[in-house]
């Protein structure tokens, strides 16, 4: 696999925070199955992509990242706001 560049790590971290804040993504800290987390995050990326009418890929593509970086309101986009 290609080495995950520093930038990609940063982008992933940024996306994780964004999804936690606005899409109720919860990283299962003690999850044995790392892949479980990843799938969960992919689902959340899809949810965000479909909200903004982006191509729903579940991947952190550039358009998705661009949208995440735009100035916005601090309220979550999905209704499970607690």
């Amino acid at each position, binding site marked *: 696999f290609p080495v995950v560049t520093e930038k990609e790590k940063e982008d992933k971290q940024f996306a994780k925070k964004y999804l936690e804040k606005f899409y109720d993504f919860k990283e299962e800290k003690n999850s044995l199955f790392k892949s479980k987390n990843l799938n969960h995050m992919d689902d959340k990326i899809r949810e965000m992509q479909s*909200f*903004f009418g982006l191509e729903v890929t579940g991947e952190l593509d550039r358009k998705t990242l661009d949208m995440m970086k*735009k*100035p*916005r*309101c*601090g309220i*979550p986009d999905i209704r499970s706001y607690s």
Partner: protein
Amino acid sequence: TFPQSPRWKKEDVTYRILNYTPDMLQADVEEAIAKAFQLWSSVTPLTFTRLYNGQADIMISFAAGFHGDFYSFDGPGGTLAHAYPPSTGIGGDAHFDEDENWTKFTTYNGFNLFLVAAHELGHSLGLGHSNVFNALMYPIYMARDTRDFRLSQDDIDGIQALYGPPRESSGLPTKSSPPQEPTEMTPAEAPTEMSPREEPTETTPTKTPIRPQDCDPHLSFDAITTLRGETLFFKGSYVWRKSPYFSDIEHDTISSFWPSLTAGFDAAYEVDKKDRVLFFKDDQYWAVSGYSIESGFPKPIQNLGFPTSVRKIDAAVHDQNTKKTYFFVGNKYWSFNENTQSMERGYPRKIASDFQGIGHTVDAALQKNGLFYFFHGSNQYEVDIKNRKLIRTMKSNSWFNC
């Protein structure tokens, strides 16, 4: 709406401005907030009365970073503000990130307080986010003209689902409002609203041309520029975005990057040292830095030194080595010194005399890796201007891995 659709169980809601941002005059903050409330009172039976002390339903404040709730702000950019749905205590309160630059103008050098306040007050009244692009309750900030700003139908449907339409009245204001701070617009002033039962008249969508295929052999461009290492190709309202890191071409629209710029650029170029891109359309130009459009634009192209006889520019390209920008108009070109910000003497000159093999008008121009690319229709000419040599001719869309 929020879970369980919380709403105010009364029609006269109170608000209080707890503090002010130093970015604006206090009167301008008060006006922006009053105007934001008016938007919502004009389409519901709600009235909003300002309190100057004590506990109001909606407490409005500016704060930075951690400010006493579980949702700290994040410095400039990112999150601009947030608000709580209707309930007691913090319910209804609206907080604005003081690390932002707040303004009353429709500028790109800061965030318009009226627009953000109107959005947040939608939350204070019980609305969630909308995924309708132009809706006020869309989560992403979009700079737009606020002079006769209107709620979208989605916003109106949402708020009227919670509170119903405005009450019909006999023309007299139902509540006397203190002269200096009208809390309610008299019905005569209220914008005529389509009542929810009326079917929206079908407006025939203006026919926007569909995007040409990437590898269409006849593809030509209006303008081309570099932008922070990437290359942007413009045609009508469409953008093709080519990155040095990704092989695939991204397809965007001008409005997705710069919502308030009108499509159909004539020319564009980047001065990378200043992280600035200039767009030209007819006899005006705009300067942007990333997403934000610099304040004070558009400006007339005559500011750059063009005679009034020049009504529009065909193409422009900045030479990163000589710091000169070449503007192409018809069969002539000008040279502009970016350091002195002035046109060079001895121009305009004939394009053909200095650019080998370019004997016609130029649609778009680009400098990449020291070489120049001049686009005319569906063809492109690679020129080494140092050695005054036309290297090759290619299709305009050769950059799209066709």
